[in-house]
């Protein structure tokens, strides 16, 4: 992995030393690579200190340098979390937070990080293992209760839940074909942490941010359907304020004269 920016080697060295970064930080101080890639942010005036920055994004390349996937966001503050990129392309999973044995299924919650900062976008995951022969209904089902994940935190904003593609199950007894999930499924949902002022009053006694919600579902097997269940789910994060420390003034970027 390498991270590329328009910073000088001196700025990157200072930042890497301060943050104990061991991966590669590459200096594209004249924005030559950024221009070659065609991702120069042209909305920045040429006399601005920020002139030369790219539209931020990430490329995943194979060993031949071919682009396998890329991740760019319209909103630069809400970058796709690295763990979500790895999850999407390779099935990596974040840190496990908790495992819950519920009726007809087992739930395991995880997240792309254990530490959150104001305005950070974080990926939440729910891994669901259904008991043998059980199925739950997928979104869009008619006449049954679909599995639904709902979060309630007010000091955060939630993206829509990502549900996997369902399988179509033929129920011969009632002559119906319905979208269901069986076995193992993974649901994902991104959350954008609120501002420091929003989050601070919501922290628990340990200074942690707790995101709570619930999973609602009705499970059925080949003989009967069970009572609908609502299982509480939660994620606990260490909360850290924004990092506002900067490199010494003499090596900072200066606007072009």
């Amino acid at each position, binding site marked *: *992995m*390498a*991270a*590329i*920016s328009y*910073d000088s*080697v001196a*700025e*990157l060295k200072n*930042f*890497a030393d301060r943050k*104990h970064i061991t*991966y*590669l930080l*590459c*200096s*594209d101080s004249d924005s030559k*690579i*950024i221009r070659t*890639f065609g*991702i120069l942010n*042209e909305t920045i005036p040429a006399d601005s200190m920020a002139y030369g*920055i*790219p*539209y*931020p*994004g*990430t*490329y*995943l*390349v*194979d060993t*031949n*340098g*071919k*682009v*396998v996937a*890329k991740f*760019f966001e319209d909103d*630069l*503050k809400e970058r796709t979390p*690295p763990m979500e990129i790895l999850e999407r392309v390779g099935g990596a*999973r*974040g*840190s496990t937070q*908790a*495992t819950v044995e519920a009726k007809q299924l087992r739930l395991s919650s995880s997240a*792309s*990080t*254990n530490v959150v*900062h*104001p*305005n*950070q976008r974080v990926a939440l995951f729910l891994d669901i293992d259904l008991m043998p022969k059980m199925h739950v209904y997928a979104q869009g089902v008619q006449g049954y209760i679909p599995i639904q994940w709902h979060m309630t935190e007010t000091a955060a904003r939630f993206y829509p839940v990502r549900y996997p593609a369902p399988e179509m199950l033929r129920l011969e007894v009632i002559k119906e074909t319905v979208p269901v999930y069986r076995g193992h499924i993974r649901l994902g949902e991104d959350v954008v942490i609120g*501002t420091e002022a929003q989050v601070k009053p919501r922290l628990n006694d340990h200074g942690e941010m707790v995101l709570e919600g619930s999973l609602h579902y009705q499970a059925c097997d080949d003989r009967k359907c069970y009572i609908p269940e609502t299982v509480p789910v939660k994620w606990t994060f260490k909360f850290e304020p924004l*990092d*506002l420390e900067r*490199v010494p003034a003499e090596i*900072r*970027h200066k606007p072009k004269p």
Partner: protein
Amino acid sequence: MSNVIYATEAHVERQAGPLLTRLSARLLPVLIFFSACAVTSAQQAIKTGPEVGSTLPAFEAPDQNGRVQNLQTILGPKGALLVFYRSADW
């Protein structure tokens, strides 16, 4: 639900932590800046560079220790992630 287990697979995320913190820092100036931009350049689409399936253009750049890197030196056994970000200092 109190059995919080911290697994080790968040290695990459943990490494990238300081960078993310930096990326999300200094929100207010950014908001003001982009609000100002929005007035003059609303609807301007972002550019995302080389398409999926294409090969990256050749490049080289010094790293934080002054050693010159290129795609070949960055590549690991499975490929690489190239992250373009605004700056390490703003």
